[in-house]
Protein backbone atom coordinates (compact mmCIF):
# COMPACT_ATOMS: atom_id res chain seq x y z
CA UNK A 1 0.00 0.00 0.00
CA UNK A 2 3.01 2.25 0.10
CA UNK A 3 3.44 2.09 -3.64
CA UNK A 4 3.63 5.49 -5.21
CA UNK A 5 1.52 5.99 -8.26
CA UNK A 6 2.33 8.30 -11.11
CA UNK A 7 0.99 11.79 -10.57
CA UNK A 8 -0.93 11.56 -13.83
CA UNK A 9 -3.74 9.70 -12.06
CA UNK A 10 -4.46 12.73 -9.94
CA UNK A 11 -7.20 14.08 -12.12
CA UNK A 12 -9.58 11.21 -11.44
CA UNK A 13 -11.74 12.34 -8.55
CA UNK A 14 -12.40 8.91 -7.05
CA UNK A 15 -9.01 7.29 -7.16
CA UNK A 16 -8.12 5.06 -4.26
CA UNK A 17 -6.15 6.72 -1.46
CA UNK A 18 -2.96 5.14 -2.78
CA UNK A 19 -3.21 7.18 -5.95
CA UNK A 20 -2.56 10.58 -4.58
CA UNK A 21 -1.67 13.75 -6.38
CA UNK A 22 1.66 15.33 -5.74
CA UNK A 23 0.66 18.23 -3.53
CA UNK A 24 3.99 19.95 -3.99
CA UNK A 25 3.05 20.48 -7.59
CA UNK A 26 -0.32 21.79 -6.51
CA UNK A 27 -2.32 19.07 -8.21
CA UNK A 28 -5.87 19.30 -7.01
CA UNK A 29 -8.66 17.68 -8.95
CA UNK A 30 -10.99 20.08 -10.71
CA UNK A 31 -8.93 23.01 -9.54
CA UNK A 32 -5.36 24.00 -10.05
CA UNK A 33 -2.93 25.50 -7.63
CA UNK A 34 -4.20 28.93 -8.63
CA UNK A 35 -7.68 27.91 -7.49
CA UNK A 36 -6.35 26.81 -4.14
CA UNK A 37 -4.42 30.07 -3.82
CA UNK A 38 -7.56 32.10 -4.56
CA UNK A 39 -9.46 29.98 -2.03
CA UNK A 40 -6.82 30.79 0.59
CA UNK A 41 -6.69 34.53 -0.24
CA UNK A 42 -10.47 34.75 -0.02
CA UNK A 43 -10.48 33.39 3.52
CA UNK A 44 -7.57 35.63 4.57
CA UNK A 45 -9.57 38.59 3.29
CA UNK A 46 -12.70 37.46 5.18
CA UNK A 47 -10.74 37.03 8.42
CA UNK A 48 -9.19 40.47 8.04
CA UNK A 49 -12.19 42.60 7.07
CA UNK A 50 -14.37 41.06 9.79
CA UNK A 51 -11.84 41.84 12.52
CA UNK A 52 -12.60 45.38 13.75
CA UNK A 53 -9.26 45.74 15.50
CA UNK A 54 -7.35 44.87 12.34
CA UNK A 55 -9.47 47.16 10.18
CA UNK A 56 -9.19 50.13 12.55
CA UNK A 57 -5.49 49.93 13.41
CA UNK A 58 -4.06 48.49 10.24
CA UNK A 59 -6.38 49.95 7.64
CA UNK A 60 -8.17 53.07 8.85
CA UNK A 61 -5.46 54.68 10.96
CA UNK A 62 -3.32 55.89 8.01
CA UNK A 63 -6.42 57.35 6.36
CA UNK A 64 -7.31 59.19 9.56
CA UNK A 65 -3.72 60.43 9.94
CA UNK A 66 -3.52 61.77 6.38
CA UNK A 67 -6.91 63.46 6.82
CA UNK A 68 -5.69 65.21 9.99
CA UNK A 69 -2.40 66.18 8.32
CA UNK A 70 -4.45 67.63 5.49
CA UNK A 71 -6.31 69.83 7.94
CA UNK A 72 -3.04 70.91 9.60
CA UNK A 73 -0.70 71.23 6.61
CA UNK A 74 -3.26 71.96 3.88
CA UNK A 75 -2.67 74.62 1.24
CA UNK A 76 -0.57 74.27 -1.87
CA UNK A 77 2.22 76.60 -0.79
CA UNK A 78 5.64 75.09 -1.63
CA UNK A 79 7.98 75.08 1.37
CA UNK A 80 11.70 74.48 1.80
CA UNK A 81 10.83 72.50 4.95
CA UNK A 82 9.10 69.98 2.69
CA UNK A 83 11.96 69.98 0.17
CA UNK A 84 10.14 72.38 -2.13
CA UNK A 85 6.85 70.53 -1.96
CA UNK A 86 3.60 71.49 -0.27
CA UNK A 87 2.84 69.76 3.02
CA UNK A 88 0.35 67.36 1.53
CA UNK A 89 2.52 66.66 -1.50
CA UNK A 90 5.05 65.36 1.01
CA UNK A 91 2.69 63.56 3.39
CA UNK A 92 0.45 61.81 0.88
CA UNK A 93 3.24 59.45 -0.32
CA UNK A 94 4.88 59.01 3.11
CA UNK A 95 1.61 58.18 4.88
CA UNK A 96 0.75 55.84 1.99
CA UNK A 97 4.09 54.18 2.76
CA UNK A 98 3.19 53.96 6.46
CA UNK A 99 -0.05 52.21 5.50
CA UNK A 100 1.94 49.59 3.55
CA UNK A 101 4.15 49.10 6.60
CA UNK A 102 1.13 48.45 8.80
CA UNK A 103 -0.68 46.23 6.33
CA UNK A 104 2.39 44.12 5.58
CA UNK A 105 5.07 44.25 8.26
CA UNK A 106 2.88 44.88 11.31
CA UNK A 107 -0.01 42.71 10.23
CA UNK A 108 2.10 39.69 9.28
CA UNK A 109 4.30 39.78 12.37
CA UNK A 110 1.27 39.88 14.67
CA UNK A 111 -0.97 37.51 12.71
CA UNK A 112 1.71 34.85 12.33
CA UNK A 113 2.84 34.94 15.96
CA UNK A 114 -0.77 34.89 17.20
CA UNK A 115 -1.68 32.00 14.94
CA UNK A 116 1.38 30.10 16.04
CA UNK A 117 0.63 30.67 19.73
CA UNK A 118 -3.01 29.57 19.43
CA UNK A 119 -2.00 26.42 17.56
CA UNK A 120 -3.64 27.45 14.28
CA UNK A 121 -0.36 27.10 12.38
CA UNK A 122 0.30 23.67 13.85
CA UNK A 123 -3.12 22.52 12.79
CA UNK A 124 -2.69 24.00 9.36
CA UNK A 125 0.57 22.06 9.06
CA UNK A 126 -1.46 18.87 9.55
CA UNK A 127 -3.64 19.63 6.49
CA UNK A 128 -2.49 19.02 2.92
CA UNK A 129 -2.34 22.77 2.21
CA UNK A 130 1.20 23.36 0.85
CA UNK A 131 3.20 25.86 2.90
CA UNK A 132 3.99 27.96 -0.16
CA UNK A 133 0.27 28.42 -0.91
CA UNK A 134 -0.25 29.57 2.65
CA UNK A 135 2.55 32.14 2.52
CA UNK A 136 1.88 33.38 -1.00
CA UNK A 137 -1.79 33.67 0.01
CA UNK A 138 -0.85 35.82 2.99
CA UNK A 139 1.47 37.93 0.83
CA UNK A 140 -1.20 38.60 -1.79
CA UNK A 141 -3.72 39.35 0.94
CA UNK A 142 -1.38 41.95 2.47
CA UNK A 143 -0.66 43.50 -0.93
CA UNK A 144 -4.41 43.80 -1.58
CA UNK A 145 -5.02 45.51 1.77
CA UNK A 146 -2.06 47.83 1.06
CA UNK A 147 -3.39 48.69 -2.39
CA UNK A 148 -6.82 49.70 -1.08
CA UNK A 149 -5.16 51.69 1.70
CA UNK A 150 -2.80 53.49 -0.69
CA UNK A 151 -5.66 54.34 -3.03
CA UNK A 152 -7.63 55.82 -0.11
CA UNK A 153 -4.64 57.83 1.13
CA UNK A 154 -3.96 59.18 -2.38
CA UNK A 155 -7.68 59.97 -2.64
CA UNK A 156 -7.59 62.00 0.58
CA UNK A 157 -4.48 63.75 -0.73
CA UNK A 158 -6.32 64.59 -3.95
CA UNK A 159 -9.13 66.14 -1.90
CA UNK A 160 -6.50 68.45 -0.44
CA UNK A 161 -5.31 69.34 -3.92
CA UNK A 162 -2.35 66.95 -4.31
CA UNK A 163 -1.80 66.07 -7.95
CA UNK A 164 -2.10 62.38 -8.86
CA UNK A 165 1.16 60.46 -9.44
CA UNK A 166 2.80 61.12 -12.78
CA UNK A 167 4.63 57.81 -13.02
CA UNK A 168 2.13 55.02 -12.33
CA UNK A 169 4.39 52.10 -13.23
CA UNK A 170 7.13 53.34 -10.90
CA UNK A 171 4.52 53.67 -8.15
CA UNK A 172 3.18 50.15 -8.84
CA UNK A 173 6.66 48.61 -8.82
CA UNK A 174 7.56 50.45 -5.60
CA UNK A 175 4.33 49.30 -3.96
CA UNK A 176 4.69 45.66 -4.89
CA UNK A 177 8.38 45.51 -3.98
CA UNK A 178 7.77 47.44 -0.75
CA UNK A 179 4.82 45.27 0.23
CA UNK A 180 6.77 42.07 -0.47
CA UNK A 181 9.83 43.30 1.45
CA UNK A 182 7.83 44.41 4.47
CA UNK A 183 5.88 41.12 4.40
CA UNK A 184 9.20 39.27 4.49
CA UNK A 185 10.40 41.45 7.37
CA UNK A 186 7.11 40.82 9.21
CA UNK A 187 7.50 37.07 8.77
CA UNK A 188 11.11 37.39 9.92
CA UNK A 189 10.10 39.21 13.11
CA UNK A 190 7.34 36.62 13.71
CA UNK A 191 10.01 33.91 13.44
CA UNK A 192 12.18 35.57 16.08
CA UNK A 193 9.49 36.55 18.59
CA UNK A 194 8.63 33.88 21.14
CA UNK A 195 5.13 34.70 22.29
CA UNK A 196 2.12 36.40 20.75
CA UNK A 197 1.98 38.81 23.70
CA UNK A 198 5.45 40.11 22.85
CA UNK A 199 4.72 40.52 19.14
CA UNK A 200 2.82 43.88 19.09
CA UNK A 201 5.37 45.43 21.45
CA UNK A 202 8.32 44.26 19.37
CA UNK A 203 6.63 45.32 16.14
CA UNK A 204 6.08 48.85 17.49
CA UNK A 205 9.51 48.99 19.11
CA UNK A 206 11.05 48.50 15.68
CA UNK A 207 8.55 50.43 13.57
CA UNK A 208 7.99 53.52 15.68
CA UNK A 209 11.56 54.92 15.79
CA UNK A 210 12.10 53.81 12.21
CA UNK A 211 9.22 55.83 10.74
CA UNK A 212 10.30 58.89 12.72
CA UNK A 213 13.94 58.88 11.64
CA UNK A 214 12.84 58.06 8.10
CA UNK A 215 10.82 61.26 7.81
CA UNK A 216 7.40 59.63 7.53
CA UNK A 217 5.75 62.06 9.95
CA UNK A 218 8.04 65.09 9.49
CA UNK A 219 10.87 65.84 7.07
CA UNK A 220 14.38 65.21 8.41
CA UNK A 221 17.05 67.78 7.51
CA UNK A 222 19.92 66.20 9.47
CA UNK A 223 22.50 64.73 7.08
CA UNK A 224 23.90 62.03 9.37
CA UNK A 225 20.45 60.80 10.32
CA UNK A 226 19.41 60.69 6.68
CA UNK A 227 22.50 58.66 5.81
CA UNK A 228 21.74 56.12 8.54
CA UNK A 229 18.02 56.01 7.74
CA UNK A 230 18.87 55.61 4.08
CA UNK A 231 20.43 52.24 4.86
CA UNK A 232 17.33 51.06 6.77
CA UNK A 233 14.24 49.91 4.90
CA UNK A 234 11.69 52.69 5.57
CA UNK A 235 13.42 55.80 4.21
CA UNK A 236 14.30 54.24 0.84
CA UNK A 237 10.66 53.16 0.57
CA UNK A 238 9.52 56.73 1.36
CA UNK A 239 11.87 58.14 -1.28
CA UNK A 240 10.72 55.67 -3.88
CA UNK A 241 7.09 56.51 -3.06
CA UNK A 242 7.70 60.28 -3.21
CA UNK A 243 9.37 60.21 -6.60
CA UNK A 244 6.40 59.14 -8.78
CA UNK A 245 4.37 62.03 -7.32
CA UNK A 246 6.90 64.69 -8.26
CA UNK A 247 7.35 65.82 -11.81
CA UNK A 248 10.06 63.93 -13.60
CA UNK A 249 10.49 61.34 -10.84
CA UNK A 250 10.62 57.73 -11.89
CA UNK A 251 12.22 54.47 -10.78
CA UNK A 252 14.50 54.96 -7.77
CA UNK A 253 16.75 51.97 -8.41
CA UNK A 254 19.16 52.58 -5.55
CA UNK A 255 16.33 52.92 -3.01
CA UNK A 256 14.49 49.94 -4.43
CA UNK A 257 17.73 47.95 -4.16
CA UNK A 258 18.14 48.74 -0.45
CA UNK A 259 14.49 47.84 0.11
CA UNK A 260 14.83 44.55 -1.74
CA UNK A 261 17.98 43.70 0.24
CA UNK A 262 16.05 44.10 3.49
CA UNK A 263 13.27 41.97 2.06
CA UNK A 264 15.74 39.20 1.22
CA UNK A 265 17.19 39.42 4.73
CA UNK A 266 13.71 39.13 6.27
CA UNK A 267 12.88 36.20 4.02
CA UNK A 268 16.13 34.41 4.93
CA UNK A 269 15.45 34.80 8.65
CA UNK A 270 11.87 33.61 8.13
CA UNK A 271 12.90 30.57 6.12
CA UNK A 272 15.60 29.57 8.58
CA UNK A 273 13.79 30.29 11.83
CA UNK A 274 10.08 29.91 11.13
CA UNK A 275 8.24 27.57 13.50
CA UNK A 276 4.76 26.12 13.12
CA UNK A 277 4.63 24.63 16.58
CA UNK A 278 3.99 26.81 19.66
CA UNK A 279 6.00 24.37 21.79
CA UNK A 280 8.88 23.10 19.72
CA UNK A 281 11.21 20.35 20.89
Amino acid at each position, binding site marked *: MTALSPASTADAPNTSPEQEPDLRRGEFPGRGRVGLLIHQIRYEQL*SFWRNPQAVIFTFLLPVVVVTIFGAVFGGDEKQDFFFGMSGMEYYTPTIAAVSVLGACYGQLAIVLSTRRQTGLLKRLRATPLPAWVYFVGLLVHCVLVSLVDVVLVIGVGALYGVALPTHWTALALTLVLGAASFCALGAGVASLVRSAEAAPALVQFIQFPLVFISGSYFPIHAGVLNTIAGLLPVKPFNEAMLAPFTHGGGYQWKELGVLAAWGVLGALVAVRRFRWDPRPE
Partner: protein
Amino acid sequence: MTAVVVEGLQKTYGSHEVLRGIDFTVTEGEIFALLGPNGAGKTTTLEILEGFRGRDKGRVKVLGLDPGLPGDSRRLRERVGLVLQDIAVEPYLSVRETIARNAGYYRAPRDVDEVIELVGLREKRAAKVKDLSGGQKRRLDLAMGVVGDPRLLFLDEPTTGFDPSARRSAWEVVQDLRASGTTIVLTTHYMDEVQALADSVAVIADGRIVESGTPATLGGRDSAFARIRFELPPGTKVSDLPVRASTATEGALVTIEVEEPTAVLHSLTDWALRRGTTLQRLTVERPSLEDVYLEITRSFEREPSQQSVATRGHRPNRSHS
Protein backbone atom coordinates in the same frame (compact mmCIF):
# COMPACT_ATOMS: atom_id res chain seq x y z
CA MET B 1 -5.00 -5.00 8.46
CA THR B 2 -3.11 -2.69 10.78
CA ALA B 3 -3.54 1.07 10.68
CA VAL B 4 -0.70 1.88 13.07
CA VAL B 5 2.40 -0.10 14.01
CA VAL B 6 4.74 1.13 16.72
CA GLU B 7 7.80 -0.94 17.65
CA GLY B 8 10.50 -0.05 20.14
CA LEU B 9 9.74 3.66 19.93
CA GLN B 10 12.18 5.78 21.92
CA LYS B 11 12.39 9.52 22.47
CA THR B 12 14.65 11.52 24.73
CA TYR B 13 14.49 15.23 25.49
CA GLY B 14 17.89 16.27 26.78
CA SER B 15 18.59 13.74 29.53
CA HIS B 16 14.92 12.92 30.07
CA GLU B 17 13.81 9.64 28.50
CA VAL B 18 10.19 10.31 27.61
CA LEU B 19 9.60 7.10 25.67
CA ARG B 20 11.63 4.02 26.62
CA GLY B 21 10.49 1.57 23.98
CA ILE B 22 6.79 1.72 23.09
CA ASP B 23 5.14 -1.14 21.22
CA PHE B 24 1.54 -1.33 20.08
CA THR B 25 -0.56 -1.86 17.01
CA VAL B 26 -3.90 -0.38 16.02
CA THR B 27 -6.15 -2.51 13.85
CA GLU B 28 -7.89 -0.80 10.97
CA GLY B 29 -11.47 0.19 11.82
CA GLU B 30 -11.12 0.06 15.59
CA ILE B 31 -11.14 2.67 18.32
CA PHE B 32 -7.86 2.43 20.17
CA ALA B 33 -7.48 4.22 23.49
CA LEU B 34 -4.05 5.25 24.75
CA LEU B 35 -4.24 5.85 28.50
CA GLY B 36 -1.78 7.02 31.09
CA PRO B 37 -1.05 9.68 33.66
CA ASN B 38 -0.07 13.18 32.57
CA GLY B 39 3.57 13.22 31.54
CA ALA B 40 3.67 9.49 30.83
CA GLY B 41 4.37 10.04 27.14
CA LYS B 42 0.93 9.91 25.52
CA THR B 43 1.12 13.24 23.74
CA THR B 44 4.73 12.68 22.65
CA THR B 45 3.71 9.32 21.16
CA LEU B 46 0.77 10.92 19.34
CA GLU B 47 2.90 13.79 18.05
CA ILE B 48 5.42 11.34 16.61
CA LEU B 49 2.59 9.46 14.89
CA GLU B 50 1.17 12.77 13.62
CA GLY B 51 4.52 13.80 12.18
CA PHE B 52 5.04 16.81 14.47
CA ARG B 53 7.99 15.27 16.27
CA GLY B 54 10.92 13.15 15.26
CA ARG B 55 11.89 9.94 17.07
CA ASP B 56 15.23 8.68 18.34
CA LYS B 57 14.71 4.96 17.77
CA GLY B 58 12.09 2.46 16.73
CA ARG B 59 9.81 1.67 13.86
CA VAL B 60 6.60 3.61 13.18
CA LYS B 61 4.13 2.94 10.39
CA VAL B 62 0.95 4.97 9.99
CA LEU B 63 -1.29 3.66 7.20
CA GLY B 64 1.83 1.98 5.86
CA LEU B 65 3.82 5.23 5.75
CA ASP B 66 6.53 6.63 8.00
CA PRO B 67 5.48 9.98 9.51
CA GLY B 68 9.15 10.71 10.22
CA LEU B 69 9.90 11.04 6.50
CA PRO B 70 8.93 14.40 4.95
CA GLY B 71 7.49 12.82 1.79
CA ASP B 72 5.43 10.25 3.67
CA SER B 73 4.34 12.86 6.21
CA ARG B 74 3.03 15.05 3.40
CA ARG B 75 1.08 12.14 1.95
CA LEU B 76 -0.34 11.29 5.35
CA ARG B 77 -1.84 14.78 5.76
CA GLU B 78 -4.38 13.90 3.09
CA ARG B 79 -5.53 10.78 4.96
CA VAL B 80 -5.10 11.57 8.65
CA GLY B 81 -7.31 13.91 10.68
CA LEU B 82 -6.50 15.25 14.08
CA VAL B 83 -8.15 16.98 16.97
CA LEU B 84 -5.56 18.39 19.34
CA GLN B 85 -5.98 19.36 22.98
CA ASP B 86 -6.09 23.12 22.50
CA ILE B 87 -8.91 24.68 20.55
CA ALA B 88 -7.57 26.73 17.65
CA VAL B 89 -10.04 28.40 15.29
CA GLU B 90 -10.20 31.78 13.53
CA PRO B 91 -12.56 33.92 15.62
CA TYR B 92 -14.20 35.98 12.87
CA LEU B 93 -15.18 33.27 10.41
CA SER B 94 -18.53 31.54 10.68
CA VAL B 95 -18.83 27.85 11.49
CA ARG B 96 -19.63 27.00 7.90
CA GLU B 97 -16.84 29.18 6.48
CA THR B 98 -14.30 27.64 8.84
CA ILE B 99 -15.19 24.11 7.75
CA ALA B 100 -15.48 25.07 4.07
CA ARG B 101 -12.04 26.69 4.18
CA ASN B 102 -10.42 23.51 5.47
CA ALA B 103 -12.47 21.32 3.12
CA GLY B 104 -10.82 23.22 0.28
CA TYR B 105 -7.41 21.95 1.38
CA TYR B 106 -8.29 18.31 0.66
CA ARG B 107 -8.46 16.40 -2.56
CA ALA B 108 -11.68 14.57 -1.71
CA PRO B 109 -13.29 16.25 1.29
CA ARG B 110 -16.58 15.29 2.92
CA ASP B 111 -19.61 17.42 2.20
CA VAL B 112 -19.41 20.53 4.41
CA ASP B 113 -23.08 20.53 5.44
CA GLU B 114 -22.96 16.82 6.18
CA VAL B 115 -20.02 17.42 8.52
CA ILE B 116 -21.87 20.29 10.23
CA GLU B 117 -24.78 17.91 10.74
CA LEU B 118 -22.49 15.16 12.00
CA VAL B 119 -21.02 17.28 14.81
CA GLY B 120 -24.38 18.81 15.69
CA LEU B 121 -23.70 22.43 14.78
CA ARG B 122 -26.53 22.95 12.30
CA GLU B 123 -28.18 25.72 14.33
CA LYS B 124 -24.81 27.45 14.69
CA ARG B 125 -23.69 27.16 11.06
CA ALA B 126 -23.90 30.91 10.43
CA ALA B 127 -22.61 31.94 13.88
CA LYS B 128 -19.19 33.51 14.20
CA VAL B 129 -16.67 31.22 15.85
CA LYS B 130 -15.97 33.82 18.57
CA ASP B 131 -19.60 33.56 19.70
CA LEU B 132 -19.52 29.79 20.23
CA SER B 133 -19.34 28.13 23.65
CA GLY B 134 -16.28 26.08 24.57
CA GLY B 135 -18.06 22.82 23.82
CA GLN B 136 -19.29 24.11 20.46
CA LYS B 137 -15.76 25.17 19.54
CA ARG B 138 -14.56 21.70 20.43
CA ARG B 139 -17.18 20.25 18.10
CA LEU B 140 -16.03 22.62 15.37
CA ASP B 141 -12.52 21.33 16.01
CA LEU B 142 -13.81 17.79 15.53
CA ALA B 143 -15.49 18.88 12.29
CA MET B 144 -12.14 20.17 11.02
CA GLY B 145 -10.56 16.86 11.98
CA VAL B 146 -13.01 14.83 9.89
CA VAL B 147 -13.75 17.17 6.95
CA GLY B 148 -10.88 15.69 4.92
CA ASP B 149 -12.58 12.27 5.20
CA PRO B 150 -9.58 10.74 6.99
CA ARG B 151 -8.94 7.03 7.20
CA LEU B 152 -7.30 7.58 10.58
CA LEU B 153 -8.34 10.14 13.18
CA PHE B 154 -6.33 11.17 16.23
CA LEU B 155 -8.41 12.49 19.11
CA ASP B 156 -6.40 13.99 21.97
CA GLU B 157 -8.71 14.25 24.99
CA PRO B 158 -11.69 15.15 22.81
CA THR B 159 -14.34 15.59 25.52
CA THR B 160 -12.40 17.40 28.24
CA GLY B 161 -14.65 20.12 29.62
CA PHE B 162 -17.85 18.73 28.07
CA ASP B 163 -21.05 18.44 30.08
CA PRO B 164 -22.46 14.91 30.32
CA SER B 165 -24.94 15.28 27.46
CA ALA B 166 -22.37 16.89 25.16
CA ARG B 167 -20.05 14.00 25.99
CA ARG B 168 -22.73 11.47 25.05
CA SER B 169 -23.33 13.15 21.70
CA ALA B 170 -19.59 13.36 21.03
CA TRP B 171 -19.39 9.62 21.70
CA GLU B 172 -22.13 9.05 19.16
CA VAL B 173 -20.19 11.04 16.58
CA VAL B 174 -17.08 8.96 17.24
CA GLN B 175 -19.08 5.72 17.02
CA ASP B 176 -20.62 6.88 13.73
CA LEU B 177 -17.13 7.54 12.39
CA ARG B 178 -16.03 4.04 13.35
CA ALA B 179 -19.14 2.65 11.70
CA SER B 180 -18.14 4.44 8.49
CA GLY B 181 -14.75 2.72 8.61
CA THR B 182 -12.52 5.37 10.22
CA THR B 183 -9.79 4.11 12.54
CA ILE B 184 -9.59 6.21 15.69
CA VAL B 185 -6.72 6.68 18.13
CA LEU B 186 -7.98 8.31 21.30
CA THR B 187 -6.40 9.63 24.47
CA THR B 188 -8.56 10.41 27.45
CA HIS B 189 -8.61 10.58 31.22
CA TYR B 190 -12.23 9.42 31.45
CA MET B 191 -12.61 5.69 31.99
CA ASP B 192 -16.32 5.77 31.19
CA GLU B 193 -15.31 7.13 27.79
CA VAL B 194 -12.91 4.23 27.29
CA GLN B 195 -15.61 1.79 28.40
CA ALA B 196 -18.13 3.32 26.00
CA LEU B 197 -15.88 3.71 22.96
CA ALA B 198 -12.69 1.73 22.92
CA ASP B 199 -12.22 -1.62 21.24
CA SER B 200 -8.73 -1.92 22.60
CA VAL B 201 -6.69 -0.13 25.22
CA ALA B 202 -3.05 0.37 26.05
CA VAL B 203 -1.80 1.97 29.25
CA ILE B 204 1.39 3.96 29.02
CA ALA B 205 3.33 4.80 32.16
CA ASP B 206 6.87 5.99 32.63
CA GLY B 207 7.54 5.81 28.90
CA ARG B 208 6.41 2.21 28.34
CA ILE B 209 3.26 0.27 27.62
CA VAL B 210 2.54 -1.45 30.94
CA GLU B 211 -0.81 -3.06 30.10
CA SER B 212 -2.89 -3.63 27.06
CA GLY B 213 -6.08 -5.44 26.22
CA THR B 214 -9.74 -4.62 25.79
CA PRO B 215 -11.72 -2.51 28.27
CA ALA B 216 -13.26 -5.76 29.58
CA THR B 217 -10.01 -7.64 30.11
CA LEU B 218 -7.53 -4.89 30.97
CA GLY B 219 -5.39 -5.81 33.96
CA GLY B 220 -7.18 -9.16 34.38
CA ARG B 221 -10.37 -7.34 35.11
CA ASP B 222 -12.62 -10.08 33.76
CA SER B 223 -11.20 -12.66 36.15
CA ALA B 224 -10.71 -10.36 39.11
CA PHE B 225 -12.27 -11.00 42.46
CA ALA B 226 -15.75 -9.73 43.14
CA ARG B 227 -15.95 -7.31 46.02
CA ILE B 228 -18.82 -7.56 48.53
CA ARG B 229 -19.25 -4.51 50.71
CA PHE B 230 -21.71 -3.75 53.48
CA GLU B 231 -22.05 -2.00 56.81
CA LEU B 232 -21.40 -4.14 59.87
CA PRO B 233 -24.75 -4.47 61.71
CA PRO B 234 -24.80 -2.63 65.06
CA GLY B 235 -23.43 -4.68 67.90
CA THR B 236 -21.54 -7.16 65.75
CA LYS B 237 -17.87 -7.66 65.12
CA VAL B 238 -16.04 -8.79 62.02
CA SER B 239 -15.26 -12.07 63.77
CA ASP B 240 -19.00 -12.74 64.18
CA LEU B 241 -19.44 -13.05 60.40
CA PRO B 242 -19.96 -16.55 59.00
CA VAL B 243 -17.28 -16.03 56.36
CA ARG B 244 -13.78 -14.76 56.72
CA ALA B 245 -13.70 -11.10 55.92
CA SER B 246 -10.45 -11.20 54.11
CA THR B 247 -9.99 -7.46 54.11
CA ALA B 248 -10.00 -5.04 56.97
CA THR B 249 -12.81 -2.56 57.37
CA GLU B 250 -12.69 0.50 55.21
CA GLY B 251 -14.45 3.24 57.04
CA ALA B 252 -17.55 1.57 58.41
CA LEU B 253 -17.81 -0.87 55.48
CA VAL B 254 -16.71 -4.50 55.56
CA THR B 255 -15.08 -5.67 52.33
CA ILE B 256 -14.94 -9.31 51.29
CA GLU B 257 -13.20 -10.35 48.08
CA VAL B 258 -14.28 -13.64 46.56
CA GLU B 259 -13.89 -15.31 43.22
CA GLU B 260 -17.56 -16.34 43.05
CA PRO B 261 -19.92 -14.39 45.30
CA THR B 262 -23.12 -16.54 45.22
CA ALA B 263 -22.39 -18.85 48.15
CA VAL B 264 -20.83 -16.16 50.31
CA LEU B 265 -23.78 -13.87 49.74
CA HIS B 266 -26.14 -16.70 50.67
CA SER B 267 -24.44 -17.37 53.99
CA LEU B 268 -24.10 -13.66 54.75
CA THR B 269 -27.75 -12.84 54.14
CA ASP B 270 -28.83 -16.01 55.99
CA TRP B 271 -26.70 -14.95 58.96
CA ALA B 272 -28.19 -11.49 58.94
CA LEU B 273 -31.80 -12.68 58.67
CA ARG B 274 -31.40 -15.17 61.51
CA ARG B 275 -30.13 -12.36 63.70
CA GLY B 276 -33.11 -10.25 62.69
CA THR B 277 -30.88 -7.55 61.19
CA THR B 278 -30.00 -6.25 57.72
CA LEU B 279 -26.84 -5.63 55.70
CA GLN B 280 -27.04 -1.90 55.08
CA ARG B 281 -25.44 -0.47 51.93
CA LEU B 282 -24.77 -3.94 50.49
CA THR B 283 -23.04 -3.93 47.10
CA VAL B 284 -21.37 -6.58 44.97
CA GLU B 285 -19.03 -5.37 42.24
CA ARG B 286 -16.16 -6.32 40.05
CA PRO B 287 -13.38 -3.75 39.83
CA SER B 288 -14.30 -0.94 37.47
CA LEU B 289 -12.03 0.03 34.61
CA GLU B 290 -11.04 3.01 36.71
CA ASP B 291 -10.03 0.75 39.64
CA VAL B 292 -7.92 -1.37 37.33
CA TYR B 293 -6.37 1.68 35.69
CA LEU B 294 -5.49 3.26 39.03
CA GLU B 295 -4.01 -0.03 40.22
CA ILE B 296 -1.87 -0.29 37.09
CA THR B 297 -0.58 3.26 37.17
CA ARG B 298 -0.31 3.69 40.96
CA SER B 299 3.22 2.37 41.40
CA PHE B 300 4.52 4.50 38.50
CA GLU B 301 3.21 7.74 39.86
CA ARG B 302 5.09 7.25 43.11
CA GLU B 303 8.50 6.35 41.72
CA PRO B 304 8.55 7.24 38.10
CA SER B 305 12.07 6.17 37.22
CA GLN B 306 13.28 3.77 39.92
CA GLN B 307 10.47 1.28 39.39
CA SER B 308 11.69 -1.81 37.59
CA VAL B 309 9.63 -1.50 34.47
CA ALA B 310 10.61 -4.89 33.12
CA THR B 311 9.27 -6.88 36.05
CA ARG B 312 6.24 -4.67 36.27
CA GLY B 313 5.41 -5.11 32.63
CA HIS B 314 5.75 -8.87 32.79
CA ARG B 315 4.04 -9.52 36.08
CA PRO B 316 1.76 -12.55 36.07
CA ASN B 317 -1.38 -11.58 34.26
CA ARG B 318 -4.57 -12.99 35.62
CA SER B 319 -6.47 -12.62 32.42
CA HIS B 320 -7.27 -15.73 30.40
CA SER B 321 -6.20 -14.26 27.12
